[in-house]
């Protein structure tokens, strides 16, 4: 053999813990940054990453991945996929890039936190590669949308979104900042890599890729599924950390972190991924419903893997399963009704054919969500457009920062989950959101939701104009119906037919 096999030298490359003497162990690894689990360096040295990779393998494989993704982009550049795409699909891309691109770049620094502060040398090396991965994801997901920026001002939000106080971005930042930017190294490994990346990123990067392939957007399908190949490696950083915590009697603390991260991810995906899968993606291109993708990726794959690691299903499992039927319909209705406040054009997705599909996938849709849409549709058909826009703010949850909502119509069950804490009244969208807050109130209590800011007079003037200004979203960027209400023609025709029949 002229070259050594990887495993002959791999262990040496991750034998890098030493005993510091010029500074103390706590100075080198401050507990608040490393993870205060009272475990010494030696406890972490048994950490064994299951998905192994070396530096030379990394640069080779990643070069190959990039060559694939960039060449597909180049080859399809002239095929005018974007120009010819259904407006609903364009909105999918806009929502995705805005909410994801710079969040991924930020994750590089969360990985760098694990690299610098983890006491497990194997984790430090894997996080080095994970950090690089996240630079890739940030950079690609800025480079790919950039070619469309000259065609559509909303595409500017692929970059701009994270700099704004747009409400969905406050929610996205609140979640990502909570699980990855403000946590210690071990918590990042559990909350970001294990909870989020082995679970939810599959929804956005593979579930959505399936829809993209159906919609003919091969550049996007290829890009996001390639990104997920990195995730599937560095997502494995958290698993061995969990095993060490469980082995050292810290299961409850690990479980709590998983439960908080999983819930936050669920809420964010209910507003980001749910509407784009079940409403924006043209009906004929929907591979599965959002709920079916959730069952495939989160219930069957992620939760099964979680219990295999020795954790329990989250205490709120039944609530979660129930929410799979409901929450994202409300998030869609909300972001659609408040459409001037989003940077994409939501597709209503409620033609008779689409409603039949929704009813099939979500039995009872018509007598619940459909009842709200009926009123909306009548207003569009009647030309009462002022009634199709809001005149106040939805109340948002002090945990997930998203509207507090529930099932409308015949099964109306909307409920607030309030909490008095240190003299302030907080509102939550569910029992679980309130529980998350209560696990560490000081992380969240001082934060102001967009409604809190409005009430504090930080949004001026106190109307839609002031709100849009505060969110840094202006005409040309503000969302409106993706299809310019063309879909309402079907209902207009139906009404004419009915009138004629009654005449």
């Amino acid at each position: 053999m002229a070259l050594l096999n990887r495993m002959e030298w791999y262990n040496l490359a991750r034998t890098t813990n030493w005993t510091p003497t010029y500074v103390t162990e706590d100075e080198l690894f401050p507990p608040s940054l490393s993870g205060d689990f009272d475990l010494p360096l030696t406890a972490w040295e048994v950490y064994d990453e299951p998905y192994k990779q070396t530096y030379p393998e990394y640069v080779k494989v990643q070069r190959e991945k990039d060559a694939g993704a960039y060449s597909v982009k180049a080859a399809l550049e002239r095929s005018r996929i974007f120009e010819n795409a259904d407006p609903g699909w364009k909105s999918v891309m806009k929502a995705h890039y805005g909410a994801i691109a710079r969040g991924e770049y930020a994750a590089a620094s969360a990985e760098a936190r694990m690299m610098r502060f983890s006491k497990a040398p194997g984790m430090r090396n894997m996080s080095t590669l994970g950090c690089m991965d996240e630079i890739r994801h940030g950079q690609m997901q800025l480079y790919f949308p950039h070619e469309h920026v000259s065609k559509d001002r909303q595409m500017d939000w692929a970059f701009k979104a994270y700099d704004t106080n747009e409400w969905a971005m406050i929610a996205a930042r609140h979640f990502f900042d909570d699980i990855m930017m403000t946590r210690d190294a071990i918590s990042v490994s559990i909350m970001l890599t294990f909870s989020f990346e082995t679970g939810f990123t599959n929804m956005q990067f593979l579930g959505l890729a399936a829809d993209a392939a159906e919609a003919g957007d091969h550049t996007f399908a290829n890009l996001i599924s390639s990104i997920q190949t990195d995730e599937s490696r560095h997502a494995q950083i958290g698993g061995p950390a969990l095993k060490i915590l469980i082995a050292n009697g810290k299961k409850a603390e690990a479980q709590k972190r998983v439960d908080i991260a999983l819930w936050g991810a669920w809420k964010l995906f209910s507003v980001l991924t749910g509407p784009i899968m079940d409403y924006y993606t043209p009906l004929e291109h929907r591979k599965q419903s959002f709920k079916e993708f959730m069952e495939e990726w989160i219930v069957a794959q992620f939760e099964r893997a979680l219990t295999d690691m020795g954790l329990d299903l989250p205490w709120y499992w039944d609530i979660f399963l129930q929410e799979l039927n409901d929450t994202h319909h409300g998030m869609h209705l909300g972001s659609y009704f408040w459409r001037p406040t989003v940077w994409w054009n939501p597709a209503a997705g409620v033609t008779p054919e689409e409603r039949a599909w929704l009813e099939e996938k979500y039995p009872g849709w018509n007598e619940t969500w459909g009842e709200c849409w009926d009123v909306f549709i009548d207003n569009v058909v009647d030309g009462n457009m002022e009634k199709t826009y809001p005149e106040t703010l939805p109340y948002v949850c002090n945990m997930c920062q998203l509207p507090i909502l529930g099932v409308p119509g015949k099964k109306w069950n909307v409920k607030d989950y309030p909490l008095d804490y240190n003299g302030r009244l907080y509102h939550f969208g569910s029992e679980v959101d309130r529980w998350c807050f209560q696990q560490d109130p000081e992380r969240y209590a001082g934060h102001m939701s967009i409604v809190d800011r409005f009430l504090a007079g930080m949004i001026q003037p106190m109307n839609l104009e002031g709100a849009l200004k505060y969110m840094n979203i202006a005409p040309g960027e503000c969302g409106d119906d993706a299809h310019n209400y063309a879909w309402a023609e079907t209902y207009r025709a139906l009404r004419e037919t009915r009138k004629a029949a009654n005449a």
Partner: protein
Amino acid sequence: MSTQKSAQAYHNNRVGPVMRAGDLAQAVIEAAKIDNPDKEIFVDDKRAYIRIHAEHEMILRQATIEEELGRPFRMNDLEVDLSSFAGQIESHDDSVRFYFTTKV
């Protein structure tokens, strides 16, 4: 109730790779059959990705994939198209193993 259907999705013991579509995925499907002779291999093609699963444990060998591909292949080249996987993973120089430690 549809929540029961969701809950049932959790009751499975299927493990294995989720590959991006392409010639490597096809080679992995064939290798899965060869390297796990006593197991039924489930293939679910979602166009953008393909689930390749077996009950409880699946082993993929570098030599088998290389043979199926008809070109040199190193085990960690699997990553180029390995978008996700069900179960836990164990990586070796010349093989990879997907498995569960528990049964439901």
